[in-house]
């Protein structure tokens, strides 16, 4: 991976020190590596640590703090059930229960064949359409019993 620290950090480079710059691009680097590799494997973490001159323990410490980062492979379809307040009062837990039983996995887990990962999201900001779930980039709103079948099909579709 090519990483130009100065370019990534932007105009601010004039104002801060080298170690601050390296530290400042850490989260961005983790995000980009994960985007490419779908999760953060050990060897990538070591590479980041060496490139930025930040101790490996420190890189792990930062990465593990944020919910966005994963240390195990993720499914091809990422299904997120919104459990924000509006979705909660409009039955998000039922959507979750249904998906858990349909795919026989628990929230936060990935199916053994890596076809899908089931998780919750705090709020995706379309509370007017609650309850809402997303399958990768695809948003499904006002989920009822018919729409949940639609979601299940979308997950199963290749």
């Amino acid at each position, binding site marked *: 991976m090519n990483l130009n620290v100065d370019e990534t950090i932007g105009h601010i480079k004039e*104002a801060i020190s080298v170690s601050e710059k390296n530290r400042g691009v850490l989260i*961005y680097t983790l995000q980009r590596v994960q985007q490419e590799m779908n999760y953060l494997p050990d060897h990538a973490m070591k590479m980041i640590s060496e490139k930025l001159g930040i101790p490996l323990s420190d890189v792990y410490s930062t990465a593990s703090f944020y919910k966005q980062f994963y240390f195990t492979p993720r499914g091809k379809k990422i299904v997120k059930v919104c459990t924000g307040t509006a979705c909660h*009062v409009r039955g998000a837990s039922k959507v979750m229960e249904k998906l858990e039983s349909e795919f026989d996995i628990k929230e936060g887990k990935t199916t053994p064949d890596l076809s899908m990962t089931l998780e919750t999201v705090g709020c995706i900001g379309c509370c007017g359409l609650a309850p809402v779930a997303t399958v990768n980039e695809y948003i499904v709103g006002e989920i009822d019993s018919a729409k949940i079948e639609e979601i299940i099909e979308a997950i199963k579709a290749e």
Partner: protein
Amino acid sequence: MPAKKPTKTSGIKDLVIRVCVGTGGLAAGSQEVIDEFGRQLKSYGIKADILKKCVNKTGCRGFCAKDVLVDVILNGKSETYQLITPENVARIVEEHILKGEPVKEWLVGPEYHAFHDKQTKILLKECGHIDPEDINAYINIGGYEAVRKIFPLETFEVIEEVRASGLRGRGGAGFLTGLKWDLCSKAEGKPKYIICNADEGDPGAFMDRSVIEGNPHSVIEGMIIGGYAIGANYGYVYIRAEYPLAIHRLKIAIADARKKGFIGKNILKSGFDFDIKIKEGAGAFICGEETALIASIEGKRGMPKAKPPFPAYKGLWGKPTVINNVETLANLPSIITKGAKWFASIGTEKSKGTKVFALTGKIKNTGLIEVPMGISLKEIIYDIGGGCERNRKFKAVQTGGPSGGCIPASHIDMPVDYESLMGAGSMMGSGGMVVMDDTTCMVDMAKFFLTFTQNESCGKCTPCRIGTKRMLEILTRITEGKGKEGDIELLLELGNDIKLSSLCGLGMSAPNPVLSTIKFFRDEYEAHIKEGVCPATVCKALRRYTVSAELCKMCGKCFKACPSAAVTWEKKQPAVIDKTKCIKCGACYEACPFSAIL
């Protein structure tokens, strides 16, 4: 599609079609509607190059319950359609655009007007009316005028203007923006930074997302004004990664502003340099807290620090930093162009201007609203919101998200401003407003919010890390019917201790949802503990469903809704629930339009 015989298109001199493409609109299928308009107009021989101008993508206008909303502006006359699908488009084009006769039954009804009438729009005024991806659209409505206006002024004059307007931080706590700027401008140290906090993490809140999606330049202009006032040459927008569309539009807006010379070196020959960088969050609610947000930009674990020192003195990379919320910043261009007096004339004595709320939950008209400070809850819920769904009984409204509290129906005449909400044990927060009716269990609601804050507690200080966990255990126990005598008192004691001893705002406010529901709905807690009953029949372990033969109108909706064939019903007979087959899912209860299932 073969081109249809050219109809009389000469009468169409000026045609604009506006389709709502906020996240809500897109989820409701607005892209398909836009595509269909494209196809239809083309088939009538209205050339494709006109289409780009015609179909004007707009941001959120707030009335998400009726998405997809479409405006057809023909020769200066505007009509708005609601709940539009691609199938409706052909008829709109044929009857309205070609013949000049709007399709009456699809036009917005009185509730659309009621929804808008009581609102005062400053921030959302242009959202839904201008193309957020076109800087010229913003400039045409007077955008970036405020930037031109401030450069001849001394920085203290700009700060004084903002202070005189009475603008307070819209992120929750309500600190005076002018004062915050003043402190930072006088703080020693260079460079200084201004950060736009767009880490809108409250579940049930989407104001900031909508403002950025609908009018990103207003936020950028606000940042330039703030940067100039405090003497900062660098700005950051810290935004949730969960908002891809907002990030996309913000990137376009920043690039365009740079091209036009509103950002960069020597802006408009004023000698002032300013640049903005977007920093995507990585999924941590706590990063909405100032010091945690700063740690996150620096590439560290997003954990808060004790204050003081305040970021205004020692913030990003140890330098003076101002952090303002999206809504706060978006207010600035109007304050500068229209003047502090104008802004201060809106609202109450201590709370000036307007506030955007995300009105959601069990209410008819869900969506984004902007109201003057001091409006009553009643006006928001009944006049704008149209009351509870299916005319259920309004029970409470939750404001301030996981940091706020529930305000009961008895306080419905209360004005909405910083002090009143705080006095009722809630807070303004960032602006989520979740309406609850008699089918919402307050204990379950408190548990929901505490589960959230417990999950998001960063773990740095003990009261928040362990205290919220203990509170959650007690609440869980109560909702499972295993509550004990003395649990309520224990919750109160723990809650107050956590508020007093936590390090940051998350811990200090985490017990609010529990404390406020105990304050106003103690009887519900007692019913769970002493009688083993959940009055709203939400808590699964405590549910026992029966049909009231008196109230039952024999419609059969419960019979159809039941997934486990536990309801027996025949026409003209009241329904009966077989307790041995019932899985306590509540589908019948929710399906009943007559509240006959108890």
